[in-house]
Each structure stands twice: as C-alpha cells, then as structure tokens.
C-alpha cells in the first residue's frame, strides 16, 4: 500500500496503477504483493482472536445459565432485524468480490459502482442496528449492570442472569459494529483512490486487503447472528 511518487504522473499517459513500482527494499512487485497479503492474513487472525474472547464468554455463560439463554434471546432480540442484516452483509461481501474482480479486469466504472454499493450496505447495517435495536433497548432499560431497568412485559419475568445476556449482546454487537464502521471508512478510502485510478490489473493490493477485512467482518456476523438471535 503505497502512494504513487508525484513526479511519475506527468511523463506517462498510462493510468497510475500501471506505473506502480515496488518499495526499494523489495525485489519485485509479486514479492511485495504476497507479503502484503500474508501480513493481512496475520492481522485477520488477530481480529479473529479478539472475537474469540466473545465466543468463549458466550459458551461459558450459555453452559452455566442454560435456561436464561433459552428464553432471553427470543424475548429481547428480534430475529427479523438480524436476518435482514445478515442478508445485507452477504450481499456486500459479494459486491466486494465483484469490485476486486472489476479492478483485475480494469473495469474502472464497475469498480467504483460496486464499492459504492458495499459502502451503502455497510451503512444500512449500522443504521438498522442502531435504529431498530440499540435505541429502543436503551429506552426500555434493557442494558447490562445496575442500569438494568427492565421489568418484563407480556408475562415474561426477567431472570437473574438477563443483564449478563444483555451485556454479552451489547459488547459483541457493539465491537462488531465498530469493525463495520472501520470497514466503511477503509472502503471510502479505496473509493477515493479508485477515482484516481490507483487500482488496476497490475496493482490492487490495498483494495484486496480491505476486501479481506470486509469479508472477515461478514464472517464474524455469520457466527454472531445464529448464536445471539436464533439459537439463544
């Protein structure tokens, strides 16, 4: 991921991605590309381990308080919002792959279009989560800790470990949401660079790495959705 040296622009009519040259300490572009992707996979494994903390806590608390987990998730969480968000994220993963593909075959307009759709899907995901889930829950006092102020409705009496389930829900989805936000930021950066034709068949390292990050965010949600919303 490097910025193109300014002085290269004017002497060649070709787009920026053709004139990209690897950094001085590498031997050729291919080595640099492989190293960048290998580095990105290492970073993705650190992100996975970050979320593994959440999944371990989920498993432990599910085993220790099985009955709370049984009815709490159905009561507090609406599976429809979760399902819509899952579909949105899967589609955004598909448009991300199409964006990388169009860069590889030098369809610059298609690249920009797919990037925009991916960004919109990300923003929709965040909007749905905050609008339909976080704000109503805050209003009803369905929050962990001593701020828990929910007294149950339609015959449901909260069990002692409901605040714990809500704590897990809030932490897992909030950290995942922050990663979606970071992803949208990175995609916007890629969109700007795509506008300046930085990505093409010979150079799309940054785009592919941001794509990998976006797929990881989708991958985490693929596991979070059933565990929190469906199975409970």
């Amino acid at each position: 991921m490097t910025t193109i040296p300014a002085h290269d622009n004017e002497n060649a009519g070709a787009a920026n991605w053709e004139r990209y040259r690897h950094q001085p300490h590498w031997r050729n572009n291919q080595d640099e590309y492989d190293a960048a992707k290998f580095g990105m996979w290492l970073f993705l494994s650190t992100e996975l381990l970050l979320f593994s903390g959440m999944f371990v806590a989920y498993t432990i608390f599910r085993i220790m308080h099985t009955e709370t987990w049984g009815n709490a998730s159905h009561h507090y969480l609406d599976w429809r919002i979760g399902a819509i968000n899952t579909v949105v994220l899967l589609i955004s993963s598909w448009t991300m792959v199409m964006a990388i593909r169009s860069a590889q075959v030098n369809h610059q307009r298609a690249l920009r279009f797919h990037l925009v759709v991916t960004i919109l899907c990300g923003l929709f995901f965040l909007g749905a989560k905050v609008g339909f889930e976080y704000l109503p829950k805050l209003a009803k006092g369905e929050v962990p800790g001593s701020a828990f102020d929910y007294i149950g409705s339609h015959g449901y009496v909260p069990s002692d470990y409901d605040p714990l389930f809500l704590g897990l829900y809030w932490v897992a989805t909030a950290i995942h949401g922050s990663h979606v936000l970071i992803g949208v930021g990175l995609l916007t950066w890629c969109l700007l660079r795509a506008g300046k034709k930085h990505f093409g068949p010979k150079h799309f390292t940054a785009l592919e790495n941001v794509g990998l990050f976006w797929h990881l965010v989708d991958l985490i949600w693929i596991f979070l959705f059933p565990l929190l919303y469906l199975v409970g």
Partner: protein
Amino acid sequence: MAHEHHIPSARFMTIILGLLLTATALTVYTALKIDLGQVGNLIIALLIAAFKAALVVGFFMHLHWDNRFNACVLLYCLIAAGTFLLFTTIDMTSRGAVDPWRAVTTPPPLVDNARERAIADGRLDEHGNPVDEHAEDHGHSAESDGTDHGADHGADENVSH
C-alpha cells in the same frame, strides 16, 4: 514471475452468493420451525454457520487459490482459539466434580434491584405484578451513566443451593 492471480468468474461468485443466502434462509427456518432441544438447535446452527464461513473464507477471501501459507495462519489461529475455548469450558463445567460445594453460585441482585425500583416508582404494585390500567412501557431512560455504584457490591447471603 508474472502476476498469475486467479481471477474468479462473475458467475461462479454469484453462485456462491446464492448458496450463502439459501443457507441463511435454512438456518432461520430450522431455528424457528424445528426444535431439537437446546443442544440440537445449537449444533444445527453451528454446522450451517460453519458451512457459510467455509464458503466465504474459501472463495470470497480467495484462500482456495492462494498459497498454502495464508491457510496455515488461519489454521493456527483457530487452533489457539479452540484451545482457549476447550480448557476454559472444561474448567467451568467440572467445577463441582470433587466437592459439590464448589459448584454453588449466588445470583447477582441486579434484577431484584430493578424490581424494587419499579415497585418504588409505581410501575409494579407492591408484590411485583405489573400495574394493569395503562400498562404500556413508558420506562424512563436509563440512569445517567453506568457508573452508578449504588448496588451493594457484596453478594448477599440468599444462597440458593
């Protein structure tokens, strides 16, 4: 070394998306319609989620056509997370194996505090049943911030064992 990146065909990727969406529909269907008990539901949901994850990692993230080393990185990471999960679960579940006393835990007083507050400001009558006439949830917003330390910190003595 020419850049011999494998460029996936658009059709193939659309098929993968289709598979993913059907798997999502399947998991929602099984969760709502079929009830195999808590453990059964969990296993079904995890299997479908693992299948979807394999699709995303294998094809969307290009791991299938990449050199083997990136796959190794993912594998080591899953092994590390798996070890963490395995031993922590063994500990948490086998706590009362030798001496049943060690498995006894006292529940936190949070819900009781919430119920007492509700009774105090009239949303519940004195023995905790919802007040009937205008039973819509006009719950006031959460307290100012989460750092209110009013709740008594020591888990009091109502031990249920």
